[in-house]
């Protein structure tokens, strides 16, 4: 019911929204919860386990009951708190966790079965018979489990992530947060003020108190206006700080567009990482429930929430309200309701000595022991001494005191401290370095206390930042907060602690009785605190009940800790930008478009995209294209873009010496203008990478790495240089992106290459020379990865695409053309050249037959470890070639023909395979136990995954041109 003249909603801006298919009206500034309450909708959800009718309990993000699905055009968001979701024109949402309608939920039968569904019923019930688990129990449990549902489609919404930096982060904008932000802001510090709600002010918007003689809301408006005008203060509303991490890093979730109709490019949420050396935790406190029989009906609400709905939203959640509370402060709810013209039927206060004169009946020393009303409370039963009586009411406001919102202080393993005075946990000082809790979050419950502690913390931070500031403290109430803990009313029946997960005091007592006396065990056995609200409403009360049941005090019982995030964070927000193509950076070759123009499917090679093959009309399969391209290279000439290989430019007087140290073989003796193949080991003796390095000048080398290991090798070189020889005169830098480089391979390669350079050159095999390519300074290498006479032409990247198109066009006039990765792979297998399929991190130089490349005369990285026993000899799997008449597979294992196929008889494995049109056979590279001594033998290749069982011939790995005559032609 809306109350005239109250609330901060904008009554000039009505909005229409839909809940469970029915249209309602609210105002701008309403949350879904306040708008539904204004429309007298009390029943908004069903509980998790028993499917009990549930209504709005709170007015904040801690809400355990009022969880709804918000339905958008392109997404459906489950478990949205109606107390946080703002209404907007066209908002469409529905209740969840029901079978049938909200009023007649078929699964409410669970409530009648509750005697069988107590804590641990899963473990007790679904144990036998064993065969029933998969077929019967699991599908039923899966159907019943969970709360909301998803659309099953991709979330096409836009999400963002962002970074922010400031001197002082203020978390929360109640009196303490505003005062802290004002103080730090006036001191000139860079301030971020993060507020979870859409409006700043915290409890000042909910309570009808005064500050400096003016209404709280007015003071808030004044301070916010001043803060807004400060260039050094950034106000972030609708932003929940979700976690505190190492070294002043905080996570925060901003609801950017969830309060508006969706439109393109409007992000739904933004996940922030905020870095701040100083932070003020002004997160306030959460009011706690009192456990008594049937305390979960719609219409039962936190007293502070009733006050919020009244003062902030102009809504009376009931026509005849009762109050059940154990503090003086909670009485304000009743007084403000009465002042607004709402009937307060009774105040029930368990304290026998409490103040008993109000403008309504007050029962001191009394307790609520039960409620009635199927879909909403209609009356309560009160016990006072030996007498019980009924009170008619449609809204019971309850309060068991307050729990400081200390969650963030526990995120770095800090344990909170139990305060007997407050009967609550308070933060341990310094639990998160740089973070200081103030106001109610630190147990200062009065408005004066909040303002004073907020100012003091910010003043200290300003001083630490070398700034001074003087801010007057406004006048405000300073009523002492006195409380005697009151957790649960003794009596029969189920009394709820955790509304979200349907955990009652009985469940906690049962857990204790069955031996789950540790709070961690109790939590897991009962699932208390494991629902979307993460125990915000129930943890401390459950702990108190457990302490009582086990005869210990609360400090001895201990507490579970709080971990991030403070509120649920959508994965879409955390992973913003990482969906689909955003998953990893994409690197494109200069020839990318030219390859795509020719219809080449692109495949990933690390972050690069390379052409797989270049289909021709009439070719039905990739194999046909691949076979043709292999033939083309062997018979005429082929062009391949090899720019993806890592290129490292190395210069300095000690460049040769440095290469000698990182490569197993010697480069200091390499003549200028020559290229050498090099092998690089890790310090543990296993092969790191291979590639060629060219000596361009006396003190200038160009190293080539494999595509996959380019970054790894750069890191390795930096380490070796900085750790072991930082004083050598050598410097290097990656130039991979600076050069476009194309392989020109085949019998007609020389003719083609020379057609592109201004002065034709006669390069020896493994030679390099600077050339002018069509007027551009470039480099010509004579190297080959195909086994044919091969050249690589390098030009600055910006000329890459033009050169590729020209090379391909000219090659086609010679009967050649471009070739892709598939053909490149077959060509190198035919030639026995290795890639990272072979040097996969577990092989030594000896395994690949290159032990002679480890120079005896000098030290190098990995040399000592490579000599360790077990890294060389006949017990090793050694590189061999395999030849077969039928298809074989990489990943298959090798066995002696006629022996059993199992792990003990395993003789090795296959790393690369391909069909060779040149030899008209399937070829493979494999590692075979003592393989080099077994050339000519036959082995059995078995691949259970692909159903292969093939006899292969063991061969020397170089199938094609073993003498290298074609290379040197």
């Amino acid at each position, binding site marked *: 019911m809306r109350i005239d003249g109250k609330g901060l909603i904008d009554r000039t801006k009505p909005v229409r929204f839909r809940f469970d298919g029915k249209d309602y009206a609210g105002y701008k500034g309403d949350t879904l919860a306040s708008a539904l309450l204004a429309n007298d909708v009390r029943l908004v959800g069903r509980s998790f386990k028993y499917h009990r009718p549930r209504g709005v309990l709170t007015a904040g993000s801690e809400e355990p009951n009022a969880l709804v699905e918000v339905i958008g055009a392109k997404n459906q968001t489950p478990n949205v708190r109606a107390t946080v979701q703002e209404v907007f024109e066209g908002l469409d949402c529905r209740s969840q966790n029901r079978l049938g309608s909200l009023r007649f939920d078929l699964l409410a039968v669970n409530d009648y079965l509750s005697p069988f569904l107590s804590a641990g019923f899963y473990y007790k019930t679904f144990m036998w018979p064993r065969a029933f688990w998969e077929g019967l129990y699991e599908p039923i449990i899966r159907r019943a489990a969970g709360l909301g549902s998803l659309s099953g489609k991709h979330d096409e919404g836009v999400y963002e992530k962002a*970074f922010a930096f400031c001197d002082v982060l203020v978390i929360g904008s109640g009196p303490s947060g505003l005062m802290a932000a004002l103080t730090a802001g006036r001191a000139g510090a860079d301030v971020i003020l993060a507020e979870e709600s859409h409006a700043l002010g915290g409890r000042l918007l909910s309570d009808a108190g005064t500050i400096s003689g003016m209404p709280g809301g007015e003071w808030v408006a004044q301070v916010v206006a001043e803060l807004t005008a400060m260039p050094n203060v950034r106000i972030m509303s609708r932003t929940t700080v979700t976690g505190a*991490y*190492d*070294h*002043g*890093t905080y996570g925060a979730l901003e609801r950017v567009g969830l309060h508006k109709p969706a439109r393109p490019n409007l992000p739904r949420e933004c996940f922030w*990482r905020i*870095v701040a050396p100083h932070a003020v935790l002004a997160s306030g406190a959460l009011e706690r429930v009192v456990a008594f029989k049937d305390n979960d009906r719609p219409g039962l609400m936190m007293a502070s929430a009733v006050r919020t709905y009244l003062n902030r939203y102009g809504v009376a959640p009931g026509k005849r309200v009762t109050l059940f509370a154990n503090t003086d402060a909670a009485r304000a709810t009743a007084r403000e309701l009465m002042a607004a013209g709402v009937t307060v039927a009774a105040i029930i206060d368990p304290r026998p000595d409490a103040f008993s004169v109000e403008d309504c009946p007050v029962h001191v020393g009394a307790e609520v022991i039960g409620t009635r009303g199927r879909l909403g409370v209609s009356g309560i039963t009160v016990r006072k001494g030996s007498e019980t009586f009924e009170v008619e009411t449609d809204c019971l406001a309850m309060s068991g005191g307050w729990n400081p919102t200390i969650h963030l202080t526990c995120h*770095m393993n800090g344990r909170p401290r139990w305060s007997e005075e407050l009967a609550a946990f308070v933060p341990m000082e310094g639990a998160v*370095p740089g973070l200081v809790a103030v106001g109610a979050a630190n147990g200062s419950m009065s408005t004066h206390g909040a303002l004073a502690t907020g100012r003091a913390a910010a003043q200290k931070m300003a001083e630490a930042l070398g700034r001074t500031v003087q801010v007057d403290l406004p006048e405000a109430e300073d009523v002492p907060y006195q409380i005697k803990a009151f957790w649960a009313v003794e009596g029969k029946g189920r009394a709820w602690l955790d509304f979200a997960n349907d955990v009652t005091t009985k469940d906690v007592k049962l857990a204790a009785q069955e031996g789950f006396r540790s709070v961690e065990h109790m939590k897991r056995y009962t699932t208390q605190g494991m629902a979307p609200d993460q125990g915000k409403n129930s943890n401390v009360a459950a702990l108190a009940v457990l302490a009582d049941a086990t005869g210990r005090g609360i400090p001895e019982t201990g507490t579970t800790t709080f971990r991030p995030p403070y509120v649920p964070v959508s994965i879409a927000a955390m992973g913003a930008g990482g969906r689909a193509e955003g998953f990893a950076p994409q690197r494109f070759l200069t020839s990318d478009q030219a390859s795509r123009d020719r219809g080449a499917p692109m495949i990933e090679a690390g972050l690069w995209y390379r052409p797989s093959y270049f289909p021709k009309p009439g070719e039905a399969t990739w194999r046909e294209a691949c076979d043709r391209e292999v033939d083309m290279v062997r018979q005429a000439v082929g062009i391949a873009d090899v720019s993806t290989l890592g290129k490292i430019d190395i210069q300095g007087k000690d460049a040769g010496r440095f290469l000698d140290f990182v490569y197993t073989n010697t480069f200091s003796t390499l003549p200028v203008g020559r290229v050498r193949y090099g092998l690089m080991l890790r*310090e*543990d003796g296993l092969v790191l990478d291979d590639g060629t390095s060219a000596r361009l000048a006396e003190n200038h080398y160009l190293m080539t790495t494999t595509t996959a290991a380019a*970054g790894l090798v*750069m*890191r390795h070189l*930096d*380490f070796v*240089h*900085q*750790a*072991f*020889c*930082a*004083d*050598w005169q050598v410097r290097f830098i990656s130039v991979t992106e600076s050069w476009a480089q194309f392989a020109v391979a085949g019998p007609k390669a020389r003719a083609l290459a020379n057609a592109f350079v201004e002065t034709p050159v006669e390069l020896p095999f493994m030679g390099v020379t600077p050339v002018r390519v069509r007027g551009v300074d470039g480099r010509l290498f004579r190297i080959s990865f195909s086994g044919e006479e091969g050249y690589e032409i390098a030009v600055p990247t910006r000329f890459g695409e033009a050169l590729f198109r020209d090379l391909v066009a000219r090659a086609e006039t010679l009967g050649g053309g471009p070739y892709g990765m598939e053909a490149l792979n077959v060509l190198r297998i035919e030639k026995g050249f290795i890639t990272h399929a072979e040097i996969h991190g577990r092989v030594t130089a000896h395994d690949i037959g290159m032990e002679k490349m480890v120079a005896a005369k000098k*030290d190098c990285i990995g040399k*000592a*470890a490579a000599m*360790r026993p077990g890294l060389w000899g006949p017990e090793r799997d050694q590189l061999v070639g395999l030849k077969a008449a039928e298809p074989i597979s990489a990943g298959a294992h090798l066995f002696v023909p006629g022996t059993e196929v199992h792990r003990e008889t395993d003789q090795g494995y296959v790393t690369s395979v391909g069909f060779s049109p040149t030899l008209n056979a399937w070829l493979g590279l494999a590692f075979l136990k003592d393989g080099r001594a077994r050339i000519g033998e036959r082995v059995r290749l078995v691949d259970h995954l692909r159903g292969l069982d093939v006899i292969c011939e063991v061969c020397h790995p170089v199938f094609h041109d073993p003498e290298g005559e074609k290379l040197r032609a």
Partner: protein
Amino acid sequence: MRLTCPLCGDRDRREFYYYGAEDYLRRPAEGAPLADWDNYLHLRDNPAGVTKDLWYHEAGCSQWLVVTRNTVTHEITGVELVAERTVGQAK
């Protein structure tokens, strides 16, 4: 987590690559017994408290860093350049 690179300043840990204990800086001399290599390559302390380890500012200045940090409190008490530490110590 954040690290203060001596060259680049205070940066997010996503800019850095973690390698391992600073023991990797004490490479045995050529011809050292196998036991020394075993120790160098494989044997590591696992301290609860102060530890020194190697980080690489991969998305920054390419410098290797020795970071002194506390595995219990996560406090970082020192960041030095590997290159500056070892100049003059090369073989």
